[in-house]
C-alpha cells in the first residue's frame, strides 16, 4: 500500500526560501502579463477587423483583468503586496510581463500572435498549477483555466484565418509569432533555474518552465502546421544574467504611455480614497 506524501501548503509556512521566492515571482509574472494582455485586448476592442472580434476582445480583456485581481489577492494575502502599489507605484523596470507586450500592438497580426502565443503561455503555466500543493492558488486556477479556453479558441481561429489571407499577411503573422515566441522563451527563463526547480520539487507546480515551454512549442507548431507559417525561426537568446524577478536578461518593462493608462493617471482626480 502506498501513501500520498504530497505536501499541502495552506500558506507559505513550511516552504523553502527558494520555493517562496519562486512562487512570488511566477505569480507576479503571470499577473503582470495578464495585466498587459488585459490592456492590449481592451485597446483593440475598437480596432478589430470584424465586429465579433471586437466583442471577443472586450470579453478577453475583462477576464484577464479579473485574473489579475485573483492573482494579486494571493500576493496580497501571502506576501503583503498591495495591489494598488503593484500597478500605481511600481517602476516599469520592476514589471515581470512577457516583453512582447511592452509596446503598443500596432497591427492585427501582432494581436493574433499575442492572443495565440503569449496568452497561451500564461494559460500553460496556470495549467501547471492544477492540483498545486499551494492550496490558495489551486482554488483560483480552475476558474481561470475555464475562461482561458475561449482565449485559446479565439487565438487559434484567427491564427489560421490570417494564415490563409495571402503571402504578405502570412509573412507578417510569421514575424510576429516568432517575436512572441522569442519573448516568451526569455520569460520562461533558463532550464536550470533554482526557484523553478524548488516549486516543482514541492509539488507547487507540476511541470518545470522548460517543459511548459516545450509543450507550448508543440501547441504552436500544431496550430501552425499546414498554414505555411514557419515558427521554427523563433530565436532562443542567451539567458546569461537572467533575472527571475523581472524574467528578463536586461532592463525593460511596459512603456510609459501604457503605464499611464493602466494606472488611470488621466482620471486620477476621480479615484476613490
Amino acid at each position: 500500500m502506498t501513501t500520498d506524501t504530497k505536501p499541502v501548503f495552506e500558506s507559505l509556512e513550511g516552504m523553502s526560501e527558494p520555493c517562496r521566492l519562486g512562487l512570488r515571482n511566477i505569480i507576479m509574472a503571470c499577473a503582470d502579463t495578464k495585466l498587459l494582455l488585459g490592456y492590449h485586448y481592451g485597446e483593440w476592442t475598437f480596432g478589430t477587423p470584424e465586429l465579433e472580434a471586437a466583442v471577443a476582445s472586450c470579453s478577453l480583456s475583462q477576464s484577464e483583468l479579473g485574473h489579475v485581481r485573483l492573482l494579486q489577492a494571493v500576493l496580497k494575502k501571502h506576501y503583503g503586496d498591495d495591489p494598488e502599489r503593484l500597478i500605481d507605484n511600481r517602476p516599469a523596470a520592476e514589471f515581470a510581463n512577457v516583453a512582447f507586450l511592452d509596446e503598443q500592438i500596432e497591427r492585427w497580426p501582432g494581436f493574433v500572435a499575442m492572443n495565440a502565443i503569449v496568452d497561451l503561455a500564461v494559460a500553460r503555466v496556470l495549467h501547471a498549477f492544477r492540483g498545486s500543493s499551494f492550496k490558495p492558488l489551486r482554488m483560483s486556477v480552475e476558474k481561470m483555466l475555464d475562461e482561458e479556453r475561449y482565449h485559446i479558441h479565439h487565438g487559434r481561429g484567427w491564427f489560421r484565418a490570417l494564415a490563409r489571407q495571402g503571402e504578405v499577411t502570412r509573412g507578417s503573422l510569421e514575424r510576429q509569432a516568432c517575436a512572441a515566441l522569442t519573448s516568451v522563451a526569455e520569460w520562461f527563463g533558463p532550464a536550470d533555474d533554482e526557484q523553478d526547480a524548488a516549486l516543482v520539487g514541492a509539488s507547487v507546480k507540476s511541470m518545470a518552465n522548460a517543459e511548459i515551454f516545450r509543450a507550448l512549442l508543440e501547441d504552436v507548431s500544431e496550430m501552425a502546421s499546414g498554414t505555411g507559417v514557419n515558427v521554427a525561426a523563433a530565436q532562443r537568446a542567451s539567458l546569461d544574467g537572467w533575472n527571475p524577478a523581472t524574467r528578463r536578461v536586461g532592463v525593460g518593462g511596459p512603456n510609459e504611455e501604457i503605464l499611464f493608462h493602466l494606472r488611470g493617471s488621466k482620471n486620477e482626480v476621480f479615484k476613490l480614497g
Partner: protein
Amino acid sequence: MTFGQVYEVFARKTHDEPLRHVGSVNATDDDLAKAYAWTLYDEESWVEMCVVPRSAVIPITQHGSVPVWGN
C-alpha cells in the same frame, strides 16, 4: 474581413431544461465560432453551449415557409 459560415448557437442555463437556440455567429472555423458564441451570448451563466454549422442543419419543413397546418 473573414469569410466564414454561419453557426447557430444553442445553450441552456440548467441541466434539466432543453437546449434552446440563442442566436448565431459568423466564423471561419469551429475554434472562432466557439470563442464568438461564448463572448457574444454571455448574458447568462450557461451550463452548456454548443454551435452547429448552419450548413449541417437539415430542414424538414420547406425553408422559410409556414406549413398549411400552421406552426
